[in-house]
Each structure stands twice: as structure tokens, then as C-alpha cells.
């Protein structure tokens, strides 16, 4: 039993995953590693494109995207253009429970490494293929990336100002959206394998993952014929960023779904004797059409902002919350490190990075009482791959002990 008693095994302890996924979905392979799976990442001889993806450590030039996405994995270089590389790939796949890859449809089959061949040989294998448009259909061989996927999948048209260009979300969000749907499909398939012994092919389309993330835009069109697009910034009185002494606080005091926020805000302003606050209690401020007018937006901003400017943002946030007014302080990345709640939760994990500096890892995305997330460790590069194929026997034994 190789597991030290001080280390709680992860939920996927002993499950071997071969990861050949790209930046469109690699977050999924990271989640599997966080869950305790033994993830072996395959890197081509040309190097991993992710190593040159921003953001970078300005000092070492190291990609923090690569660092984050490949924590707790082992990486091995495999040259699929060479016979020896293809043999190694085949051996690794045979050692695995799950393959998680994003090669262009048909590419692996062209090298004699078709998923179907491996699945026939090993019927319990889960093979997850994540590609920009899925493995079939007229766009199956189209190329994409985060920008193209957000554009074609319908997310971009919803973000930005009406008078300007559609806007992409920051920071490779496609990778998280598609990666997590791919994990859902993979783990549902793995569950089925645990119950029945049968593996399967999981065919994930990034395009469909994005088109699944449009709130109700698809249904607004199919049910009511309404084609949603970009909205003016402050679309309603009481909603938007309000200035403070040291930044801004977002207030979400609508009169729609959760009307109490608006009523509580107006009551507070009146109790404080803010000039113009009585006006906001008039009947017309409950009418949606008026609230959305430029006049109402400008007037309410004038009244509310003269009050919010008296506070610093953390004070105002606390005061608004005490009074049941939906709100949040505007945060840049640096502000997240000052978040009181995250400090209480001990969320960031500090590690030594180099001789002078520590690095702060984000805490768990979710918590499991019996099988906590594995602590993040940087990727380990394996120079002699022969051991990888052999060591999985031990991992499999470990899995059996657990079972």
C-alpha cells in the first residue's frame, strides 16, 4: 500500500488519464488531476503551445497559463511523427483509464492511432475528444481558438456596448467552459464504466459548449422571437458602479426580480437626509420604462453617487449588505488578495517559487469533505517514459485497494 496514511486519497486516486488536450479545454484535465487522477500529459517534440501563452512571470518568462493548467501532472515528450513515438503513445494509452485529447478529427487515425482501435482492444477505455466543433458535421475540420469560439458560439454578441464592437471575455474563458463540460461527460462515462465495465467515446464540441452558455438567448429567440445583443452600460436606475473614496462599488438595486434592494437603498438615502432622495420614493421610480430612461439613470446616479462618495469601498459594501442591498466592491486581481472572506477561508495557497518570491495558488474550486483537492504542485517533467508505463501497475493496485 504505497499511500502514506497522512495523505487522504483523492476521489480519482489510481485513475490514469492521458492528457493531450489543448488550450480550448485543458482546464478539464486539470480538474481531473485536482481530483487525484494520475494525469500524464503528452507534449509534442515542437513543445507545448501553452508554454507561450500569457500571462507570464515577467522575471522568468514562464507562462502562468501553462503553470496553472498543468499542476499535479507529469509531462512526457512524445514524437508522434516517429514510429518510436507512436509506440510509446500506444503503450501509454493502453496503461490508461481515460484519454482526454483535442487532436483535429482524423489526425490520430491518420497516424494509425485511431480511438476505435484502442477501444476495441480495451473495451473499458473512456476516450474523450474535445474539438472546436465536434468530430462530425460540416465544420468538423474548421479551426478556432478562444476568440473564434466566443464569436461563433454566441457569447460575444451579448457583451460590449451597442455602439462599439462585440467584446470577448477576458482570459481564455472557453477553456473553462468547454473543459468543465468535457469533465462532466468524461466522469459520467467513467461512472458507467465503473458500474458496467463498458467504456465509450465522449465527443465534445467547444462550439456547443459556448452555445450552451448564453443564459436564455436561444430561448428568447425561439419562444418570443427576440434576438438579444449588447445592452447600454447602466441599463436601469440603481444599477451600476458608484464612486467611493478609494474605488467603486457595484450596486444592483433593480425594481424587477429583487425589488427590496431598491426600496432599502431609497430608505437609507432618505434616512440620511440626502438631497433629492425623497424624489426617488415617487411612484414613477417603480416603473420599468421610466427607470430605463436616460433621464432616470442620470438623475438617480447624481443623487446616489453624492452619498456613496463619502465612504471607502469596503465600508460601503458592508453598509449596503447590512441593509439588504445587493452590491459588491469592484475588484481587480490585486484586490482579490484583500478579500476578508477569502482570508478567513484560507483560500490562497502560498508556495516558494524561486529564491526571492512566493507564488499564490487559487484555492479549490469546490470542496469535498472526504476527498479534498490535491495540493497544487508544479508539473513534473519525465525524461525516461518507460517507467510511466510500468508504474501504472502500482497505481492500478492502489485503486483496487481503495475499491
Amino acid at each position, binding site marked *: 500500500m504505497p499511500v502514506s496514511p497522512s495523505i487522504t486519497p483523492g476521489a480519482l486516486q489510481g485513475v490514469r488519464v492521458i492528457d493531450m488536450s489543448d488550450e480550448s479545454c485543458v482546464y478539464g484535465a486539470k480538474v481531473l488531476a485536482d481530483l487525484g487522477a494520475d494525469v500524464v500529459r503528452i507534449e509534442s517534440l515542437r513543445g507545448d503551445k501553452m508554454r507561450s501563452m*500569457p500571462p507570464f512571470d515577467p522575471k522568468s518568462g514562464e507562462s502562468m497559463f501553462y503553470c496553472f493548467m498543468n499542476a499535479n501532472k507529469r509531462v512526457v515528450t512524445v514524437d508522434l511523427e516517429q514510429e518510436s513515438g507512436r509506440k510509446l503513445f500506444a503503450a501509454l494509452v493502453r496503461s490508461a483509464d481515460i484519454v482526454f485529447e483535442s487532436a483535429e478529427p482524423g489526425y490520430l487515425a491518420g497516424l494509425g492511432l485511431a480511438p476505435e482501435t484502442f477501444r476495441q482492444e480495451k473495451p473499458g477505455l473512456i476516450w474523450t475528444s474535445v474539438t472546436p466543433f465536434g468530430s462530425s458535421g460540416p465544420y468538423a475540420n474548421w479551426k478556432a481558438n478562444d476568440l473564434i469560439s466566443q464569436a461563433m458560439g454566441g457569447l460575444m454578441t451579448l457583451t460590449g456596448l451597442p455602439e462599439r464592437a462585440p467584446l470577448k471575455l477576458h482570459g481564455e474563458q472557453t477553456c473553462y*467552459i468547454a473543459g468543465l463540460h468535457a469533465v462532466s461527460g468524461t466522469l459520467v462515462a467513467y461512472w458507467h464504466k465503473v458500474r458496467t465495465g463498458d467504456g465509450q467515446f465522449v465527443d465534445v464540441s467547444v462550439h456547443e459548449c459556448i452555445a450552451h452558455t448564453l443564459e436564455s438567448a436561444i430561448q428568447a429567440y425561439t419562444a418570443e422571437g427576440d434576438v438579444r445583443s449588447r445592452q447600454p452600460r447602466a441599463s436601469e436606475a440603481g444599477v451600476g458602479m458608484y464612486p467611493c473614496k478609494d474605488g467603486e462599488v457595484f450596486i444592483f438595486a433593480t425594481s424587477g426580480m429583487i425589488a427590496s434592494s431598491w426600496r432599502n437603498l431609497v430608505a437609507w438615502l432618505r434616512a440620511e437626509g440626502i438631497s433629492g432622495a425623497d424624489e426617488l420614493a415617487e411612484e414613477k421610480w417603480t416603473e420599468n420604462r421610466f427607470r430605463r430612461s436616460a433621464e432616470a439613470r442620470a438623475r438617480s446616479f447624481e443623487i446616489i453617487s453624492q452619498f456613496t462618495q463619502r465612504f471607502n469601498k469596503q465600508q460601503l459594501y458592508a453598509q449596503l449588505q447590512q441593509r439588504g442591498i445587493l452590491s459588491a466592491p469592484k475588484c481587480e486581481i490585486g484586490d482579490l488578495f484583500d478579500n476578508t472572506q477569502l482570508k478567513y477561508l484560507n483560500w490562497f495557497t502560498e508556495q516558494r517559487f524561486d529564491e526571492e518570491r512566493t507564488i499564490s495558488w487559487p484555492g479549490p474550486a469546490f470542496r469535498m469533505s*472526504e476527498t479534498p483537492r490535491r495540493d497544487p504542485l508544479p508539473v513534473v517533467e519525465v525524461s525516461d517514459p518507460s517507467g510511466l508505463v510500468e508504474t501504472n501497475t502500482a497505481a492500478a493496485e492502489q485503486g483496487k485497494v481503495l475499491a
Partner: protein
Amino acid sequence: MSSSSNFEKRPGKLALEGIRVLDFTIGGAGPFATKLLADNGAEVIKVETSTHYDFPRTMGPYAGGVKGVNRSAYFTNRNSGKRSIAINLKKKEAAEALKRIIPTVDIVANNFRAGVLEKLGFGYQQLAAMRPDLIYISMPLQGSAGPQAEFSGVGHTLNVLAGIFGLTTYEDGTLVGPGTNFPDHSVNPGHAVSAIMAALIHRERTGLGQYLEVSQLESTMNLLGPDILAYSLSRQNPKPLGNGSAVHAPYGVYPAANNEWLALAVESDDEWQRLASYASDQSWAKDAKLATREGRLADVATLNAAIEAWTRDQNARELAAALQQNGVRAGLVQNARDLVDLDPQIAAREAFVTVDHPEMGPVVYNAAPYKLSATPPQIRSAPMLGQHNDEVFREWLGLPDEEMERLEKLEAFV
């Protein structure tokens, strides 16, 4: 009311058949998570009351634009394949009746603030005493303990708090925030399903259940993982890039004919050559300085202006297709009409499916965005409010008629 009509057709075996979920979640992120389980065959029982039903039931869009608790397409898309029971758990007898189901339940899900379900007797400790290997998932906004655990919020405020909003800016720094609260309808449910499936697999291997928690703040902040690592080393906030890239050009959206937009991205010198040979009549295509990445990044504004002059009067859909034929990453900025009516890929893969609803008639749903070869997920109708009371209490729990009548008299089923 006929109760089981939605569930009679079962052409193939679904992976989560036999898994039973008691679902207290409301709104966006919670119901989207349990919906993914239902689409894979889990028996998801949605607990509502007619006074406190799941609030998206009265959020549009509505079938035919007509409002009603059984008419919202916002609701149906998040609740496909579930059963709904209407029950007033504040009545002791009602709570006792529902608790009879706990020994047969694999998973309990909720996204209330800490303490709400405990008061009704449905907290983790209380239910785990009845079913020791229970998997219980909570999805509080900011965790179940801590100085701000009681703070309230919605998707909009959470995105601001987690930093996602502040990073959604144009390249000139103009702040707009995401046009939709995307963590609510993809990432937070995705983390929840990952945890649930891992816990099910762990239970199968060890016999142990567990308590799971998806704090929506912690979940959403992982979407900025690389930026958090980078900031901790550099103490620099990311510079606004809008649609652009720090390492590639051209990279962005370009205006086209008919108020449409073309997304175009060149990620290597080789891809630039392919773009240049397609646009060989353009002067920029012959500019030797632009043949290298460094050359293209040297003056992105001028390069973008030149590309814009080329795309401005072209049909974006046709140009995107032509560029793709030439190995260039390009695509139309699509809206819902483009996706539903004009996208041949969506059509070929049946990514949207239409399912009949007892009151709404045909309703369009997003299918699961993955295909499983052996156990394909299946979209079944979302429930009417309280549609499955009889099935759950009479058929599954075997409550005799007199007991049902007694509960009805007590107004337990409202």
C-alpha cells in the same frame, strides 16, 4: 394530473439511471447542475411550493410571450428531465412525509444560505443519519462560514466581487462587464457536477458518502487562475486588451457588411501567409514587415485598420468560410438567430432539440454539448409545478389514499 408521461420513452440506457436526486436548488447555477444529471438519466425530484416556486418560472422568455408559472423557457432550459413536487415543508407532517424518501436518495442538492435547510430538518447531518452514504452538495454564494458568508448576491454582484467583471473591458479600459453571467450557467454548475460525479465514483469504490460545497465565489475565481498566479509574482494587474492578444496579431473582430462582425485570429507566421495569399490583392498582404509576428505586433492599430478596410464591405459568413477553407481561424460573430436558423454545424449535430411540454407545446432546449457513444444523454421535458406529487408520494413511497387525503387536508401539497 398524469404524472409520469414525460418518462415513458426510454430508447437507450442512460448512464445515471437508478441515481435519485432530491433537488432543493433554485435560480440559475444550482438547477443547471442537477439538470445535467437529469439529462443523463438521474431521477431528479425538484422540491417547490406553489408560493415559493423556483423563481425563474416567472422570468421570461415565455412560450408565445404569455406569462405563467408553467410557461417560462428560462425555467425549462434549466430543468429538463426533472420531476416537480409541490410541498410545504414548514408543515411538520409534510416534512416527515418527504423524509421517507431519504433512504432511497443518493444525492441531495441545494443552494440556500447555511441554516435554511437545517431548520426544516434537511441539513446534511440530519439526512446522513438516515442514509449514511449520502452525497450532499451545497452551493452557497461565498461559503458556509466566515465574516461575509451571510452576504447576499446574484450573478452580477458575484462577478464584480470575483474580479471577472473588472476584467471585461475594451482595449482603452472602458469597463463593461460580461453581457451574461456566464459562471452561473456553465462553470459553477460544471464544478458542481465534477464534484458530484467524483463523489459517486468514490462512493462506488469505498462505500462512503460525503459533503460537497461549491462556493460560487471560489468556483468563479478559478476562472482567473493564471492571472492570480501572475499577480502574486509580479504585483501587476493585467493590462486591458479588449479583443486583442498580447502575443498575436491580427487578433480581434472586424466590421463587415450588414452590421455583422468577423472574428479573425492569426497565431503564427504560417497562418499569416495563408491569410496573405487569400487576400493577395491587398497591399498589406505583400508587406514584408508583416511576415513576422514581431512585425505584426509592432503597429497593431495600423494593421487592424488595414484589415478593417478589407472586411468592411464583405459578407462575414462567406468570408469566414473562405478563410477557413484556406486554414485561417475565422468566424462570424453569431447571435441566437444565426445559431438556431443558419448554423449548419449546430443543425448537423442536433445541438438544439425540441421537446413537447404539457402547457407550452414545442419547446427548444440546448442538448448536452457532448455526445456519449454508449449512453447518449436525452433531453426530456421540464416539469409543471407539482406535476409529480402523485408519482413520488403514491407510487414511489406507497402512501395510502387515506394518508394522501390527510396531507391534502393539512395543505401539505401546496
